[in-house]
């Protein structure tokens, strides 16, 4: 689905992740032999993972990120008219975690608050939702996104396909209408492939089937109690439907891939990002992989790459034409082209 949203922009962006970076060898222990592990790490390009201390949730990381933006005086709390949290790991099954975020950030009561269950395309979906809301919302939108998946009730402690790549992080972005004299457009192309929803899903723990636990309430180590991924099907998707979606978006805006100042794609792993860059004919400078010491942070991975770029000295005033593309569970791919040249972006923060 193509479209354009006018006169809105991302005003501020911040990411929080863990000070604790665990080497992949430590995370997998003896589940993988050293020779194979070396191949895995060479393939994924991920050497260390951001793993939070027990008790920290994604919403805590969101609150920390938002507080930094308010502390810097970039945006005021009173300016926020809506807050929503894109996550697959809310603090509680209900209510939406956005209410707790509203409370912790002392936002006014005259706000909308809700959660969005979305996976790795989540940041781009989040921008779409926030930007669309701004057509009528009198104030700004606080978009929160992230997952903490590192605890063994969430990530199968025997599933090396996730253990070797998943990291914890959360980001917040504040979107608002552009000033009178400043015209901006956000172009998007979003596709969904529900026929493949089982290629990356968690079978149990909701309406269809309960989790299976022991008599003492411990999780039984069965793959169906956790997220399951068909690696080849996902790779196939990221090397076919994803570049097709991006190419179609470029055609829609009548721009060539060479017109992209920066391409911020979901940091699934190094192989995927490099292969996607090659497929689209873009260099690794234009489409960087920034998460070698962080891991795949799901819906926060694009903003994490953005704040890591900032931390490494990137000059965002040069990014007039930025391509964003998130892709993952659904399966879905959401791509956008937007102007990031006046974004107020903070370097990545660690807690």
């Amino acid at each position: 689905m193509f479209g354009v949203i006018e006169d809105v922009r991302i005003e501020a962006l911040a990411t929080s992740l863990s000070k604790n970076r665990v080497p992949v060898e430590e995370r997998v222990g003896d589940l993988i032999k050293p020779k194979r592990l070396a191949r895995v790490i060479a393939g994924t390009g991920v050497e260390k993972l951001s793993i939070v201390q027990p008790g920290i949730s994604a919403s805590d990381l969101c609150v920390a990120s938002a507080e930094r933006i308010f502390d810097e005086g970039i945006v005021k709390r009173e300016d926020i008219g809506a807050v929503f949290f894109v996550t697959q790991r809310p603090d509680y099954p209900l209510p939406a975690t956005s209410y707790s975020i509203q409370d912790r950030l002392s936002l006014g009561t005259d706000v909308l608050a809700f959660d969005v269950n979305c996976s790795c395309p989540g940041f781009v979906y989040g921008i779409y939702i926030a930007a669309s809301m701004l057509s009528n919302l009198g104030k700004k939108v606080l978009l929160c996104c992230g997952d903490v998946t590192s605890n063994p009730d969430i990530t199968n402690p025997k599933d090396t396909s996730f253990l070797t790549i998943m990291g914890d992080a959360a980001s917040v972005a504040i979107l608002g209408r552009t000033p009178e004299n400043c015209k901006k457009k956000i172009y998007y192309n979003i596709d969904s492939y529900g026929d493949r929803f089982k290629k990356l899903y968690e079978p149990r723990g909701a309406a269809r089937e309960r989790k299976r636990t022991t008599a003492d309430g411990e999780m039984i180590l069965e793959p169906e109690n956790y997220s399951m991924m068909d690696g080849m099907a996902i790779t196939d998707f990221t090397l076919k439907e994803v570049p097709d979606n991006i190419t179609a978006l470029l055609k829609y805006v009548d721009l060539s891939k060479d017109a992209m100042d920066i391409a911020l794609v979901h940091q699934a792993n190094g192989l995927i990002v490099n292969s996607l860059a090659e497929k689209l004919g873009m260099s690794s400078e234009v489409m960087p992989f920034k998460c070698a010491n962080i891991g795949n942070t799901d819906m926060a991975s694009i903003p994490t790459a953005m704040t890591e770029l900032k931390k490494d000295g990137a000059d965002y005033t040069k990014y007039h034409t930025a391509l964003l593309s998130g892709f993952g569970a659904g399966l879905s791919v959401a791509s956008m082209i937007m102007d990031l040249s006046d974004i107020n972006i903070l370097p990545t923060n660690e807690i």
Partner: protein
Amino acid sequence: MNEQEFIEKLVDVMDTEEELQMDTVLEEVEEWDSLSYVSFLALCSKVAKTHVEPQEVRDAKVVRDLYQLINR
């Protein structure tokens, strides 16, 4: 791509020290695992003339089967 070039690329994909031949049985190569499937799919995405389905990669029995996927 000729057979020799293909074998060199495949050795790279699998990161193996084994000497591969066209009739090498894939399941006898230690490094022919899920990691290699994914790297091989990425290779196909670059060099194959037609789209290669993951199932076709899984169904391949010998190196020649993979070569045919790239070249058909």
